[in-house]
């Protein structure tokens, strides 16, 4: 995966969380709807944040090829 792709997915997940939280505070959506968004978007945010910042610019290690 390209670094830009990881960044875009991570940003989209973060925006979804912030938008859901804002909409809940404003009373536009019920709390359970905001929670449903968090349950889906938070794991995506965590994984793609890590994929984005670990993305190596240098030479890769030799990958494990399985048993």
């Amino acid at each position, binding site marked *: 995966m390209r670094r830009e792709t990881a960044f875009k997915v991570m940003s989209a997940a973060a925006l979804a969380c912030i938008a859901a939280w804002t909409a809940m505070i404003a009373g536009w959506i019920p709390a359970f709807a905001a929670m449903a968004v968090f349950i*889906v978007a938070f*794991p995506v945010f*965590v*994984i793609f944040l890590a994929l984005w910042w*670990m993305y190596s610019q240098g030479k890769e290690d030799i990958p494990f090829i399985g048993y």
Partner: protein
Amino acid sequence: MIGYLVSATFTGLLMLGIHRKVIARIQKRPGPPIWQEILHTLKFSFKSTWVPATASRTLFIAVVLIGIGIWCAALFVVTEGGSVLILFGIYMLHKIVEHGYGLSSGSPYGKFGGVRSVISATSEIPLFVTIAAIYLFTHSLIISDIVAYQAVHGPLLLSVPPAAVAMYLVLLSKMPYGPFSIVESKELVSGYKTEHFGVWRAGLEVCNGLKTYVLLYAAVLIFIGQFPIWAMLALMLALLVSLSFVCALSPMLSPYDSVTVQTLATAFMIVYIIALVVMA
């Protein structure tokens, strides 16, 4: 809500670090610093990441996302005073996720870890009996109702101590380095999570942090009651340290013995529930 989710993750990881530290001090070792699990999570998220050639790529990645997602849901169920049944349904779902971690990698260590995860599902049986005992007293399985019941009648820990002991066993089975930690046993390298490294392991650590926080919080909430957050954290810490003592002083059981002990605990709880029903 976002802040609570993130702080619960870090608090859970910190508690896992305290767990390791307490075990080490009891065993007269210096042990790692208490923030070690937080450092682990950050460290893994910077490591090279790929999917093993033998792995089922979709499942290998999806279980990490599902693992974090289900414990986010559990956190919301607990904090919003939802149903105990949903919480414990999520707990059982975690077993399936653990199984998925192990089987998706294609590694024999992971597979054995996954199989042991299914075997250790016996630890959930005391959980169901615990739910029955709680229902007999409170006539509700909604956490907010259980908390309200305790505000009037006192902690369930004093009313139904055997159920609290059964819940304690369930917590013990989820703590690392404990007598029932057969899924992460050292003869399986790291058990079901052996092949999940780099970012995937960081995600798994986030899942573990959330799981630890939610289970300790739920145990305090269901058996002692609702308090200000600092008191909840103090009670969770006390519970954690007691679990660390048990983990430090007891050897890891073999898979067969682990299942036997948990089945015996369940049998004892069933007898207790029948006695309660007969007396009622």
